[in-house]
């Protein structure tokens, strides 16, 4: 994939479902990087409000999303009428990955194939 991935980071403001140390370490790594990126205080809030920013993000040809479970992220975008493409999206699950792995995948210049495969598998499993 030759496209530079767009990066979206969710700070998950409520409920403490994403471990604080992972969230903080990933934000620190991201802000120390040479990347341009988007951050949101709470992706659930954007979905709840149907924020048009989600549509703009969903249209990106290549997108990495650091948030929570792929199935949740996929359907949050869908709920905001901003469906994600079936290809070219990598889900980086901050609820389960350690900070190091999450950051490594987020900062990689291309979509990480292993995650793409995992994400697809997860989405297919649920289909």
């Amino acid at each position, binding site marked *: 994939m030759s496209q530079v991935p*767009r990066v979206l980071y969710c700070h998950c403001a409520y409920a403490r479902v994403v471990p604080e140390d992972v969230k903080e370490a990933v*934000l620190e790594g991201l*802000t120390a990087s040479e990347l341009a990126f988007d951050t949101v205080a709470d992706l659930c809030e954007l979905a*709840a409000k149907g924020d048009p920013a989600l549509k703009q993000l969903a249209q990106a040809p290549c997108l990495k999303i650091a948030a929570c479970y792929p199935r949740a992220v996929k359907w949050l975008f869908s709920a905001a009428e901003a469906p994600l493409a079936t290809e070219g999206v990598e889900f980086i699950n901050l609820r389960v990955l350690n900070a190091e792995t999450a950051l490594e995948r987020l900062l990689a210049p291309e979509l990480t194939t292993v995650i793409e495969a995992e994400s697809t598998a997860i989405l297919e499993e649920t289909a």
Partner: protein
Amino acid sequence: MIQNAAPALRIVLYEGVGSQPLAAPERLELFRALLKKGYQVTRALKDGGVSAIQEGLLLVLGRFTETRPELAESHDGKVTVHVRELGERSPQDVVALVEEVVGELEAKAPGGWKPWFPVIDYDRCTNCMQCLSFCLFDVYGVENKKLKVLNQNNCKTDCPACSRVCPEVAILFPKYKQGPINGDKIDPEDLRREAMKVDISALLGGDIYAALRDRSDKAKSRFSKERDEDRALKERQFCLTKLQKQLDIPDEVLASLPTMEQIQAKAARALGSSEEPAS
């Protein structure tokens, strides 16, 4: 689902041409402070790589080396850009500056929403309407004959009850602690367990024990011997309490369960009044 489609203010930390890049620790503190206040923040560099902005209000912050107009507009008038100099402000002072601009522009501030609402996995949903029937607070409705979350603000915080009755494990609460309701992948055991809980008639009608019977041989023998009505009522209460604990259902919800007739009538009404797709 959508509460209000008005775009929120987006903050852009500009570090491209005509500006001085920030030191990493300062950048981190700024992001932290603004995210904590609920803002969306984008870091923009010379080569972009961030999401294109097609509409809304942008507040661009930077340490500019060239003079910039404070206000600009996209040619189609859909994006208004407000530019402010960061200067030597501390992160707290930057937050204050942002809040001042939000006030001046009467922009939509972050917050004012309820972080607990159901999200439907339409890859799984079979449109059976059990959730709509079950929910006492009219969170669900029907649009174009399809189940929809229509009144998400009516949802009771921390109540995952409707996701428990969904036979397809199609209702997510992203902020729930456990899978698969939080969006984690679904394994066959989840499906079996959820299926056991789903029969609304069992949950509400005469045979609440059916689901529990499936779990416990002990319970099975006790129920089969049961004759006394008072005892049955007590058992029913006991089982409801047990079920409530297992399913994490708040008292408020369980205290006012509708009757089976009410449930069926509600689903029929919702389907009947669903509008055809607009041409």
